[in-house]
């Protein structure tokens, strides 16, 4: 019931951020055969359905396999009760983009040689093999080759059974040069026909996900051998239902009843467990018993190493990786895995009645939750194998399913657990949950894939991040981990939040028009003769002359080398070979840390070394001096700057301004601080000068005390208002300074300073409001309004006093009375301060605070990037005012007289003889 109540209480927000559910399975490029997928699942019968009925295993034609001895057909077997045609038609896992297959270059956001948005047809530099379209002169992978090499990451069905035009593959006539009916000899490059009738095709493999111990390695072996028909049967080899003897499959009699049905003991049909998903989707280690092991930066567990995410409930300190500071890392790899949340709990089937909820956009306002849903039996008959996905950087895959997944907030009430966070709403709006809850990746990940060069075994030159520098030993290198880069990611609604990513930069050769990536076989021909480098290459690349090319030597670091390879590629007949570089972001959404390990330190972002603008190393060198470009198809805003250091390393740094972000404590506008600082310092200087002059001139003339009388100048309320204002403004200036430059004031807790600033601001507004009311109602407001008639004359008189008269010991030009306390210069200054600057400061401050409450108004005025520097400038002016004001209070008959008057109320003022003019007015 707990899962439903999550949904009942959730109010999905308008903006959904990233989640990397990439159905585009990225397979490992198998040359020598992979090892990783051979790990058989060791989790026990966790989700085995206790009531699944027994059934017969049927072959393609619907006959019981015990009679025919043929391969199991999942579509027929499972199709006896479940609508397998429906399932296969509604499954991106099967389809992989086949439905959207088109001529190369027509894919939105794709490259000019991509044929579909999915794994079948979208080129990936990390795999490098290219699914050739019809009509290409040079064929790399045809369909059959694709199944052999990359089918290990495919559940079957879709392109493994159906041709690009929708016909079954077995119906295709063999045409020469047709990628769908030919395979390529890896050494000679010759095409030979492929007999689909003989090999069979691969049906969607139910056993792979729905049995507890599928023999994935056996399945992969059959795929690689070209025995597509038997791949699904091979999956059952560990189950006790079938054996393979001398290459032939024999069904075990003891697994079946006399009626030819599977014995109940062997019917182990289950909901997919994490281990099932982990067969393809990266390292899942769903047990606490054995330590998790991962070879660092090797091709094994390739899918994991795009980001380094390991889905395991185990503690890092209990794992088998050589992690730096391992003993201190007592958190689990992934908090959800620790808490027994399964992949399918978030990536559910879209018509699963347990999880189904109407989309926000179509939900009527009066309905929170619609209980009307598919009956369980109906669902089991036709379960959509379209699984919920988020909006990751791998955004071309299953585009129709984007944003179908519930985000963190549908289960977690972030507001109640983040009461300690100032500006909660603003943070949640701009920062994705992952940013703070996946602050650090602890395992290594790929950084760079350089296919402009090849090693002797035709692999690229790769770099990894997160390993200690020096040679990479997959088992013993110290894994230091890395901090993901934070980039803004846009969602389907157009909002953007910053989220963590890994960036993998790859370089490769392309040729021709239309563009195609240079085939691996051609690269091999250009670089190698057999398995050795030809003399020409050795001469150019072997720097230390030791007769072999180390990784550090396999670099196109000057034009001569580039020209050499270009020439060799051209000799193969490739037109205009050139280097292209691209940067692919990979979303990071798993390996979430529990609360204690999330970022809680404000200064992680609100300081000089902010995570938000922390650069990431893309590559330590630039092959052929080609700057890479971000791929067009990710959801990220790539408006930071790419720069190279002197050593030639390439970095990418996100910029806040470009993303319309202003991070308090990190961002500032240089000229504002400069101008403000100058004004402040100038005022200080002026004050010191003026005061010094007064001091010296007063020493030089005889002291003369004018006639004084005691007048009750300032009422209690005025004094209270004034001093409250003083302390609050001083507090605001100080806390504002700490917020503006938190690194200079590391002693203070950023969070507390922000809270104090807000409270003081509220006090200021209340104080100002009450005071305005008082002044209006009592008529005291008159004192502050400069009289326009004669104003300039009087102002000049007053100014002359300050500039000259005061040094001569002159009397003040204007009498100070309780009815007229302010001279014209004071009036105009206070008017400006109290009626212009103060309201502006209050308004800009309120809007900055209100950026989370009234984002529309704030954004209309330019958002934080405008309001914050404005607020800062006015703050500088206030600071300068304080200096000036305090100084000018010393211009009473004695230096401290005015201050005393503001404290005690009684002022001693000089006695004036009334002139005739004044007596009349």
């Amino acid at each position, binding site marked *: *019931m707990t899962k439903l109540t999550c949904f009942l209480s959730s109010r999905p927000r308008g903006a959904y951020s990233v989640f990397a559910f990439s159905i585009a399975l990225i397979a490992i490029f198998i040359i020598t055969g992979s090892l990783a997928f051979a790990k058989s699942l060791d*989790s*026990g*019968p*966790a989700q085995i359905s206790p009531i699944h009925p027994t059934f017969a295993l049927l072959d393609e034609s619907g006959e019981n396999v015990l009679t025919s001895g043929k391969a199991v057909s999942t579509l027929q077997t499972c199709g006896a009760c479940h609508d397998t045609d429906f399932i296969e038609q509604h499954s991106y896992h099967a389809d992989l983009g086949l439905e959207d297959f088109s001529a190369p270059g027509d894919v939105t956001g794709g490259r000019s040689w991509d044929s579909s948005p999915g794994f079948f047809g979208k080129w990936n530099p990390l795999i490098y093999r290219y699914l050739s379209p019809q009509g290409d002169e040079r064929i790399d992978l045809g369909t059959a080759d694709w199944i052999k090499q990359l089918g290990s990451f495919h559940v079957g069905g879709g392109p493994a059974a159906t041709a690009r035009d929708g016909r079954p593959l077995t119906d295709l006539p063999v045409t020469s040069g047709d990628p769908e009916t030919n395979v390529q000899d890896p050494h000679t490059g010759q095409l030979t026909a492929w007999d689909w009738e003989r090999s069979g095709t691969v049906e969607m493999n139910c056993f792979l996900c729905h049995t507890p111990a599928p023999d994935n390695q056996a399945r992969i072996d059959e795929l690689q051998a070209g025995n597509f028909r038997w791949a699904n049967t091979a999956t059952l080899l560990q189950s006790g239902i079938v054996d393979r003897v001398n290459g032939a499959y024999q069904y075990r009699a003891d697994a079946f009843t006399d009626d030819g049905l599977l014995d109940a003991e062997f019917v182990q049909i289950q909901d997919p467990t994490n281990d099932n998903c982990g067969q393809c989707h990266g390292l899942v280690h769903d*047990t*606490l*018993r054995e330590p998790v092991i991962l070879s660092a930066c090797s091709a094994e567990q390739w899918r994991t190493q795009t980001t380094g995410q390991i889905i395991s*409930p185990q*503690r890092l*300190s209990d794992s088998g990786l050589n992690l730096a500071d391992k003993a201190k890392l*007592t958190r*689990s790899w992934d908090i959800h895995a*620790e*808490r*027994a949340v399964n992949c399918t709990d978030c990536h559910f089937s879209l018509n699963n009645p347990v999880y189904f909820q109407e989309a926000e956009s179509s939900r009527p306002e009066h309905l929170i939750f619609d209980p009307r849903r598919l009956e369980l039996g109906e669902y089991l008959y036709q379960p959509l194998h379209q699984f919920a996905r988020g909006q990751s950087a791998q955004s071309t895959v299953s585009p129709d399913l984007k944003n179908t997944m519930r985000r963190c907030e549908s289960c977690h009430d972030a507001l109640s657990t983040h*009461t*300690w966070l100032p500006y909660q709403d603003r943070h949640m709006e701009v920062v994705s949950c992952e940013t703070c809850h996946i602050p650090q990746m602890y395992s290594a990940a790929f950084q760079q894939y350089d296919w402009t060069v090849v090693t002797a075994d035709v692999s690229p030159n790769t770099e990894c991040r997160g390993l200690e520098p020096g040679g990479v030993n997959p088992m013993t290198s110290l894994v230091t981990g890395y901090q993901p880069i934070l980039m803004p990611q846009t969602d389907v609604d157009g909002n953007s939040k910053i989220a963590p990513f890994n960036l993998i930069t790859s370089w490769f050769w392309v040729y021709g028009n239309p563009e195609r990536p240079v085939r691996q076989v051609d690269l091999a021909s250009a670089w190698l003769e057999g398995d050795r480098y030809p003399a020409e290459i050795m001469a150019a690349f072997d720097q230390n002359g030791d007769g072999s090319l180390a990784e550090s030597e396999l670099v196109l670091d000057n034009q001569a080398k580039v020209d050499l390879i270009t020439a060799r590629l051209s000799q193969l007949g490739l037109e205009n070979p050139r280097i292209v570089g691209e940067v692919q972001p990979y979303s990071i959404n798993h390996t979430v840390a*529990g*609360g*204690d390990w999330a970022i809680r330190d404000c200064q992680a972002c609100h300081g000089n070394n902010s995570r938000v603008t922390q650069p990431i190393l893309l590559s330590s060198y630039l092959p052929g001096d080609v700057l890479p470009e971000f791929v067009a198809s990710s959801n990220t805003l790539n408006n930071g700057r790419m720069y190279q250091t002197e050593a030639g390393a390439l970095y990418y740094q996100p910029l806040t301004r470009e993303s319309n972000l202003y991070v308090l404590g990190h961002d500032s506008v240089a000229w504002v601080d400069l101008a403000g600082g100058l004004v402040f310092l100038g005022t200080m200087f002026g004050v010191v000068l003026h005061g010094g002059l007064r001091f010296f001139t007063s020493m030089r003339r005889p002291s003369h005390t004018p006639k004084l009388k005691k007048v*009750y100048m300032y009422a*209690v309320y005025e*004094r*209270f208002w004034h*001093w*409250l204002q003083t*302390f*609050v403004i001083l*507090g605001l200036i100080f806390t504002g300074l700490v917020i503006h430059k938190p690194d200079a004031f590391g002693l203070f807790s950023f969070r*507390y300073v922000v*809270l*104090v600033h807000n*409270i*003081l601001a*509220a*006090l200021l507004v209340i104080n100002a409001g009450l005071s305005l009311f008082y002044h209006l109602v009592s008529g005291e407001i008159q004192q502050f309004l400069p009289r326009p008639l004669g104003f300039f004359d009087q102002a000049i008189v007053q100014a002359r006093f300050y500039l000259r008269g005061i040094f001569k010991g002159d009397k003040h030009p204007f009498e100070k009375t309780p009815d007229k306390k302010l001279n014209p210069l004071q009036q105009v200054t206070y008017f400006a301060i109290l009626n212009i600057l103060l309201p502006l400061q209050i308004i800009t401050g309120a809007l900055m605070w209100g950026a989370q409450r009234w984002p529309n108004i704030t954004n209309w005025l330019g958002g934080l990037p405008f309001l914050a520097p404005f607020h800062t400038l006015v703050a500088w002016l206030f600071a300068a005012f304080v200096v000036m004001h305090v100084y000018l209070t010393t211009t009473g008959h004695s230096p401290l007289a005015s201050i005393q008057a503001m*404290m*005690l*109320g*009684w002022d001693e003022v000089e006695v004036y003889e009334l002139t005739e003019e004044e007596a009349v007015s």
Partner: protein
Amino acid sequence: MRIADKIRSAKYIWIFGLVFTLLSIAVPVILLIPKDTRAADDPWAVVPKKSPHTNHTDLLAGPFETGSEVTRACLECHPDAAQDLMQTVHWTWESKPYQLEGRDEPVTIGKKNSLNNFCLGIQSNWPSCTSCHAGYGWFDADFDFSVQENVDCLVCHDLSGGYVKGRGGLPVEGVDLLASAQSVGSPTRENCGSCHFNGGGGNAVKHGDMDQTLYFPSASLDIHMGGHDFQCIDCHQAQDHDIRGRAISVSLDRENQVACSDCHSENLHSDARINAHANAVACQTCHVPTGAVIEPTKMYWDWSTAGQDLPEDPHAYLKLKGSFVYESGFTPEYYWYKGAKDRYLFGDIIDPTQVTQINTLDGDISDPEAKIWPFKVHRGKQPYDAVYNYLLQPMTAGEGGFWDTFDWDIALRAGAEATNMAYSGEYGFAETEMYWSLSHMIAPADNALQCKSCHSSEGRLDWVALGYPGDPMQWGGRFSNTPR
């Protein structure tokens, strides 16, 4: 107006003003800043501070020929000490009368007169067994429990490390009693452990969570004793020698117990879900994930094979004792528990074809006071009377005992006499089991059990056996809405 004038002319009125102004800033700030809501758990505040050590070197002159002489010397300055100790079970080896559920009369039971499935019982074996009595001279049933000078002060208070007790609880030949007496101080793990770590006849045999590795433990072995050098008495605090704590093997009542919550607050986990477990799961269940972490403990003791001349191995077979199974790093068994329910008493009829429980646990899933605890369950085969169908306690040590004659009949006859039980002459061996709760060898918090240690297909709890319909993560807790 007058008051206003007075205010105006008051000289130090500005101080009021200043204070009021500052308060109008400070008060909102203090009130409005949200406090960090984490509960401050300060267990150190409750740990007793020990009084400083008093050096007894100048206070005791000696010479001391016997332990009792030392005791006499102690009593000169600590006159009540012996009397206080004599009220407690360390001296009496027997509980106060206690009414067990289902029995007609209250029973007094303890090490003095009970049966277990380790060395079985002390009656007729006193000289050997009483080497762990906190007294001198308990050689037979006629030991006088009222003699103060027979109290052994040194076993708990000696800090010289050279004090060893032998038969009857007397110090062995060669112990320097003067040095021992002069070294006395607050008891350390070495004092308590000299007996409690070696129960059952050797190091680590009996308890499963206490053995000699706790003399110098690492933090990962036991966070309190290893990480913070806790002595036993830091938790098992004593008032007038009445030491807190109860032993599941010999205690019946539930008073004066030690609990984690004596020092640690109940809701000290930062995660609310984990705190919620405290209603059904004892702290020990998650925080003592493994029993006998380093040294193997005895898990099975088959007396029936004793007496044969087979190759000997202290961890597998001894002629004196029979065959055993030792295990280290074992996963505890888990049962509902809130205290002892019943205890096997001499004369209780058994069914020799079934496993007899030496002690039973009180509590079940529907009892809100009961929680799931970790246990070492010691199983074995021990002699019983084949005619009367009750367990027998043999005489093992001493002349005429099994270790002397290797004759069960003679040994059981002698033992039956000492225990006042009738012996028919026919004996057999029945299976028994005994529950020992685990509370020591507490792992550091970072090594506590994780969710999947229990809530997974490889979990260590048998939900159905505990009374749940299935994993409470899916079914809900025991008192949740799901009707059963």
